[in-house]
């Protein structure tokens, strides 16, 4: 046999040796997918959702590991201030954690790294969710997150100040109030205090979009875009919302320095009884303020004890009162260097463990509606909010406005974010600072909306 022949024989023999190994590798890959006891690690980034959430998560992980000892759950508690930026960097570097605590977002889906959960959702899991709850974790009908509670944005009042001014807060909790009813009430709540400071009818921060979003949602405008992606902040209702906001500054019921007030300052003013009502407030403030009152009794904190009442956001005359609501929970991701199907399955198992019946303690602590039937059952009779606030929160949940972002296509969702950050926020700040009139702001919304969304 010549040299070429020998070489060909060797190559043939080598390929015969390699091919079965490839075949074997395939079989072993299949076996690996079926074999669910291979050690794996699932990374979770979360936030201090409530004061005791770290204890909750440790307990949930411990329970999970009793049935899945081969899956290590590594969690990291991020700070609210810096966590979002840390996650954004990790996501855009292609290495997000497997689970991240947040509302679902079109931007996450756009990266191609958000894990679609539909194929992992069993019938039992789907049936356990209360009507409408699962949709809070969907983007365009596809499941990307499992909510563990439905948040609620409301306003919050100091009961003593409201009652001294003759405001029937119980009736307001039940029936709501219009823009003009609120302005009248706020004038009664605003006065000079003996120490020379001012007690304002309403205090809000001027650094976020929450306030203008709550007001416009109560004027019949769910967001700058409707669920079909059509720009709707171009009519009379937008102008009336802006006039309502500016009117409160002109009346003096909101501080003229609102544009520069941070959320912490707003809370400080509420605790110092310099604010009768604050925006935004969440039902959890009821628990936080009760704890603060206990600290005052124990001498740990100085200040006046406050009786907190949750209040609805006023609505435009002729419109229905709406409570801004949405879902927050865990969103699942894969990485640029995909760890495979089994890892994705394990990630979902951890996600379900962190979102199940026991995880309902988050909704319970936050005094928010549960999202699952098993949670409602597990925490029946264990509510922490005062009865009037609990009743009010349940009533508010009957008429909610959820952000449209999850139902929009990814491109529209990104443009909406840009509109909010680069058109709404600067104009809102200019309105609060008295640098622009409501008419000018409404005109700018109209023009920029047309430019960006084409209608």
């Amino acid at each position: 046999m010549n040299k070429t022949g020998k070489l060909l024989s060797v190559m043939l023999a080598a390929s015969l040796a390699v091919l079965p190994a490839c075949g074997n590798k395939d079989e072993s890959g299949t076996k690996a997918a079926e074999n669910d006891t291979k050690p794996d690690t699932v990374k979770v980034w979360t936030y201090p959702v409530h004061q005791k959430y770290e204890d909750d998560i440790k307990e949930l992980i411990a329970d999970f590991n009793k049935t899945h000892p081969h899956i290590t759950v590594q969690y990291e508690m991020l700070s609210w201030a810096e966590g979002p930026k840390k996650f954004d960097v990790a996501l855009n570097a292609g290495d997000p954690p497997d689970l991240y605590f947040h509302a679902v977002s079109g931007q996450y889906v756009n990266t191609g790294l958000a894990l679609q959960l539909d194929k992992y959702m069993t019938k039992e899991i789907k049936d356990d969710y209360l009507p409408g709850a699962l949709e809070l974790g969907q983007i365009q009908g596809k499941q990307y997150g499992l909510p563990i509670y439905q948040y609620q944005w409301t306003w919050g009042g100091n009961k003593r100040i409201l009652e001294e001014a003759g405001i029937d807060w119980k009736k307001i909790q039940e029936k709501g109030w219009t823009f003009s009813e609120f302005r009248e009430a706020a004038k009664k709540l605003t006065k000079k205090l003996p120490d020379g400071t001012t007690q304002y009818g309403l205090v809000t921060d001027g650094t976020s979009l929450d306030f203008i979003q709550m007001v416009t949602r109560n004027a019949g405008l769910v967001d700058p875009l409707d669920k079909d992606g059509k720009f709707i902040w171009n009519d009379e209702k937008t102008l009336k919302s802006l006039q309502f906001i500016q009117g409160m500054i002109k009346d003096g019921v909101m501080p003229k320095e609102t544009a520069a007030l941070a959320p912490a300052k707003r809370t400080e003013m509420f605790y110092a009884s310099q604010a009768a009502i604050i925006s935004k407030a969440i039902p959890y403030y009821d628990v936080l303020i009760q704890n603060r009152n206990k600290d005052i009794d124990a001498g740990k904190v100085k200040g006046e004890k406050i009786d907190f009442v949750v209040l609805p956001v006023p609505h435009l005359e002729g419109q229905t009162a709406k409570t801004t609501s949405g879902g927050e929970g865990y969103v699942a991701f894969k990485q640029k260097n995909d760890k495979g199907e089994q890892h994705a399955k394990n990630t979902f198992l951890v996600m379900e463990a962190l979102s199940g019946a026991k995880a309902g303690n988050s909704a319970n602590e936050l005094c928010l509606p549960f999202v699952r039937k098993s949670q409602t059952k597990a925490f029946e009779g264990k509510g922490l909010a005062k009865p009037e606030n609990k009743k009010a929160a349940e009533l508010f949940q009957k008429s909610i406005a959820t952000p449209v972002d999850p139902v929009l296509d990814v491109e529209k969702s990104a443009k909406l974010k840009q509109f909010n950050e680069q058109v709404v926020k600067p104009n809102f700040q200019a309105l609060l600072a008295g640098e622009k009139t409501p008419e000018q702001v409404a005109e700018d919304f109209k023009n920029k909306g047309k430019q960006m969304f084409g209608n």
Partner: protein
Amino acid sequence: MPAITAKPKQPRSFGQFWRDYGSAYLFILAPVMLFLTFTLYPVVSAFFMSFQKYNVLQSKWIGFANYKHMFSDEIFWKSIKNTVLFTIGTVPVNIIITFVLAFLIFQMKSSWQTFFKASLYLPSVASGVTISLVWLAIFDPTSAGLMNKFLDLFGLEPIIWLGQSNKALFSLMLMTYLGSHGSGIILYLAAMGGIPKSLYEAADIDHASGWTKFTRITWPLLKPTTLYLLVTGVITSFQVFISVYLMTQGGPNFATTTIAYLIYETAFVFYDFGLASAQSFVLAGMIIIISIIQFKFFSTDIEY
């Protein structure tokens, strides 16, 4: 007599080269690797990214679209305007303040010089984040804020420092006037110490006034230090970010949106890394051009 011929150069072996220079190259290997990994590679990547619509899994080549979008964006031009205003409002003023402080300190006894050098240098040691958070409290818009309490002493109304478009940028400039002179003072003092006393003695013989000595001796001979502070001051002010991020987030109504903050917002709020890269290169180009102009016009040497 045999002609003297040059000895032919023996080719050096690698072994010999390594013995002579190997340790030097080893010493510079680490910083060169750091430079290549953390400076050159990111700059080259960012350059290519500026021509792409970035996506973490699959970016798309879009040519000059990012640059076209940037130059037609009014917010970009607003950020350039704010950055230039901030630079003009801080760099010359801070150089003057730094020089005056250094000049005053230079006249003192050495023990007092040491004390003032240390005290004025301390703010440079504190982190920008800490300083920004403290100034946020100082600029509290209510009457409880320190600046407003100071105004109240003179019967003036409180000012919403960071909440009004016509005051927010000035508030950020004010921060720099009151705290960023330490390193400049050290440099000026060292330069002043290097001016030969014989020049002043010669001026005294000619009955030169203090002003003449200052304008004809002190200031010209401090030109290299002034040029250095001018160039580094412009580079630093063009990259102002921490105070904007922590105190105003670019507002109110884009009044404090600087180019560096816009780059951050484009990348980390809107996830548009391609556009942010394009903006970064424009910023870098502007800084290079301004630095060249400064060196061309201000770098002539003075010799006596």
